[in-house]
């Protein structure tokens, strides 16, 4: 495991560097005048030019990248053009808010997805299976903005049970209430994928020789499931959940905008709109790093659950 860990972490570091390059390159392609975006349409051109000069937007790309990456390495993502304050004043708060939302989503969707998938697997080919699969597929392909607006309409506007999102501040109770609808929206999309994978994993595990061995030992159905099927069925599911992380984080963009939830997604949407390049780079980079870390954690978890990798470092 140690060797696997070291290798995996080493690769992660390389990926991280590449990620920073990708983000920097894409962000530095942003044309349009940053100065004008900041000063607004009514400012004098001279002031705009001065500001552009002042912000150091005129150097060669690789120098600017190295400077940015070096600072970022020290946890300094520069100053937001928009707020004229360090990006790090905003990023952690937004990150934590998004993290809460992502966690809430996972807390809702993982058990539902896994249980749904497992049930579908046991009932393979029967109506229950069909219903779960079709519901999952339909939810997965309905855009989050459709699901979200329906949820808002029903639970916030009509029933007034829950607030239509919110800033994610306040008491725990308020925070929980505010998070429910956006989390449900994101869950709707992920449910199908997780259930599908859990179903496939369970079907594979059910068909595996070791399950036959367990059954032929005379274990009860429950014992077979608990000790032999579920654990093995979950291995591929974990990987899928991790692979959906990036998708989930992408979903934050629309969902947070719709629910006015003050997380990274909203920060990114705004930053792109304002051409707040430092903020944009930092937040997209953070999203990338976060999804990378989640993939890494999932890999490590899968590895750890899989004794082959844990003990031998085999792939």
């Amino acid at each position, binding site marked *: 495991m140690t060797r696997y860990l070291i290798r995996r972490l080493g690769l992660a570091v390389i990926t991280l560097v590449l990620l920073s390059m990708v983000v920097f390159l894409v962000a530095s*392609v*942003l044309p349009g005048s940053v100065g004008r975006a900041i000063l607004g349409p009514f400012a004098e051109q001279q002031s705009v030019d001065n500001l552009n000069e002042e912000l150091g937007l005129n150097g060669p790309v690789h120098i600017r990248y190295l400077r940015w990456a070096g600072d970022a390495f020290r946890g300094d993502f520069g100053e937001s053009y928009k707020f004229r304050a360090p990006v790090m004043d905003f990023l952690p708060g937004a990150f934590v808010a998004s993290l809460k939302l992502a966690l809430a989503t996972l807390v809702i969707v993982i058990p539902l997805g896994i249980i749904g998938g497992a049930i579908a697997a046991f009932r393979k080919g029967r109506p229950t299976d069909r219903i779960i699969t079709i519901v999952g597929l339909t939810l997965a392909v309905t855009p989050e903005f459709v699901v979200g607006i329906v949820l808002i309409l029903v639970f916030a506007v009509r029933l007034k049970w829950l607030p239509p999102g919110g800033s994610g501040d306040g008491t725990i109770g308020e925070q929980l209430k505010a998070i429910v609808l956006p989390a449900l929206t994101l869950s709707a999309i992920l449910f199908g994928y997780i259930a599908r994978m859990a179903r496939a994993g369970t079907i594979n595990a059910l068909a595996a020789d070791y399950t036959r061995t367990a059954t032929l030992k005379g274990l009860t159905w429950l014992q077979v499931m608990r000790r032999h099927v579920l654990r093995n069925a979950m291995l591929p599911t974990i990987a899928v959940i991790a692979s959906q992380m990036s998708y989930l984080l992408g979903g934050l963009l629309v969902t947070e905008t719709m629910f006015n939830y003050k997380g990274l997604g909203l920060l990114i949407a705004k930053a792109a709109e304002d051409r707040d390049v430092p903020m944009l780079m930092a937040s997209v980079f953070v999203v990338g790093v976060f*999804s990378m870390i989640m993939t890494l954690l999932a890999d490590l978890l899968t590895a750890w659950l899989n004794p082959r990798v844990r003990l031998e470092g085999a792939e």
Partner: protein
Amino acid sequence: MTAVEIQTPGAKAVRREFWSQLLRSKTFIVGMAILAFWVLCVVFPDLVATHDPTAQDPLAKWVRPFNDGHLFGTDRFGRDVFSRAIYGAREILIVAPAATVLGTGLGVILGLTMGYLGGIVDDVVSRLIEALISLPVILVALLALTSLSAGRLTIIGVIGFLFAPLVARTVRAAVLEERNLEYVRAAELRSENAFYVMFIEILPNVFGPIIVEFTVRLGYAVFTMAGLAFIGFGSQPGSPDWGRTIFDERISLLSDVWWPSLVPALALASLVVAINLVADALEGVIDR
């Protein structure tokens, strides 16, 4: 001794088997039927639509469905919701497949090269791919679309470019399995060059996963386009494009006017569901 094993076991016509199996699959039939309907709408929208999708009628704002000759009612400009949904298929059904073809093409070339050549090429590109796919597609699309002009070609390029790593990963995995099979050794043993081995020997054998990946990506492309339209990119205001219309009209939901946004949402969902049904059916039939 000659005529020993001339007869073949059942002499199955494999290709015919493939199609008959597909045609027997309900998911495939349903999916294809819906797809065919939308393709018809792209090619001959006027056959299906009942109204001019852009004609405004200030006197007929928000006509409820099944009234006044409007199948699904009208929107706030009095435009026919049904006809707009029909015309709205065009943009997405041209752009999404084009983007997917581009992404799949790039991804296949990349995946084949990585999988077959391996070594340092694979290592480097793999890292890059891992970096790229940890960035949500829609975020990068957002960045790229703000940077470049938000035209059709840009969208095709951006989505294609972003799908390439995902396709490449799938293709690479499939190629890794193929590459160790002996027919590849056999080709190498008659000094075939790498290009021949990759594209003539291996490619046809990873076609299954590629087709499945293509359909899955196509679904994602449609979805991504709708998402982009929703955050204000892609098509222009006034265009009947589904994502755009949902974005434009969703606010009327608050006035209890659900049809202008729900109809295109359902149209969108039906298309993505159809694509996924076909993908599922293909996955079940294609030998991996």
